[in-house]
């Protein structure tokens, strides 16, 4: 049967990408950025040393938003081009993004307790981040509950696009909601000595993000290719219930 030969010619992939440079580079860069930020920043006049939480909290939040921007773009690209790689990239970015939003929320809570005296406040940024987290938990659950790859890809692309589109709307609504109820605004704006520390840490987090997303993506690619190889083998072998 001619199909037997097809399997042998199945895509020859032996990539075992480890991104070994980034794997040890990200902790080093992150530690360096944190040490640098600690060294150059004096205690804040309002918040004292608590200000130092900003160097992890804010970069985590920024990079979470970057991840979801990647989800948004890749989802659109998937529906447009129907290239499975866009779907896998969206899924990888969503997973990393969910981890970073969760981290942002916990850090916000740790920061809020000594600053505002409460673990949680209905602050616009914190609340929208929480909603964003829930939206992407929904995204990841949908993926987990759907087996068929094309269905999973198209459904989650739709959910990813609508979810990302909702982010600015959620933010606006929560902000107006807070303004109308008159409470204290968010903590002080960032002055220059702090800004450099913040930038360094944001870049360090970006490297973490790149490493995580690329590694997750490489694993997802490898998994799909292995599945396809097994499918092709099943198709060829005639044992069609492999």
């Amino acid at each position, binding site marked *: 049967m001619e199909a*037997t030969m097809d*399997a*042998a010619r*199945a895509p020859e*992939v*032996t990539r*075992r990408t*480890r991104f070994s440079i980034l794997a040890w580079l990200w902790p080093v860069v*992150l530690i360096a950025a*944190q040490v640098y930020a600690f060294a150059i920043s004096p205690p804040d006049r309002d918040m*004292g*040393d*608590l200000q*130092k*939480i900003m160097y*992890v*909290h804010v970069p*985590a939040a920024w990079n979470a938003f970057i991840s979801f921007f990647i989800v948004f773009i890749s989802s659109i690209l998937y529906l447009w081009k129907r290239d499975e790689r866009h779907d896998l990239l969206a899924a990888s970015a969503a997973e*990393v993004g969910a*981890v970073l939003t*969760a*981290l942002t929320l*916990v*850090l916000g809570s*740790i*920061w809020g*307790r*000594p600053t505002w005296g409460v673990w949680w406040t209905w602050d616009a940024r914190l609340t929208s981040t929480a909603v964003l987290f829930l939206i992407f938990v929904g995204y990841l659950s949908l993926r987990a509950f759907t087996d068929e790859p094309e269905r999973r890809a198209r459904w989650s692309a739709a959910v990813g696009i609508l979810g990302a589109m909702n982010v600015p709307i959620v933010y606006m609504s929560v902000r107006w909601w807070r303004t109308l109820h008159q409470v204290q605004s968010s903590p002080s704006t960032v002055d220059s000595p702090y800004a450099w520390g913040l930038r360094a840490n944001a870049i360090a987090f970006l490297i*973490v993000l790149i490493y*995580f997303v690329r*590694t*997750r993506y*490489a*694993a*997802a690619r*490898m*998994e799909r*290719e*292995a*599945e396809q*190889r*097994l499918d*092709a*083998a099943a198709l*060829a*072998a005639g044992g069609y219930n492999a």
Partner: protein
Amino acid sequence: MREWRFVIAAYVVTWVVLIGYAVRLFLVNRRVTALHDESVRVVSGAAR
């Protein structure tokens, strides 16, 4: 001094989460590599 407890907590949480996710990536990679090896074995077995 009390402030430092929160700062330390924040950095500990950050590192635990990041390293935790890196470990998850490692485990995923190991599982996927095993699947990859199996698929290659199955395909070369079928070709013979």
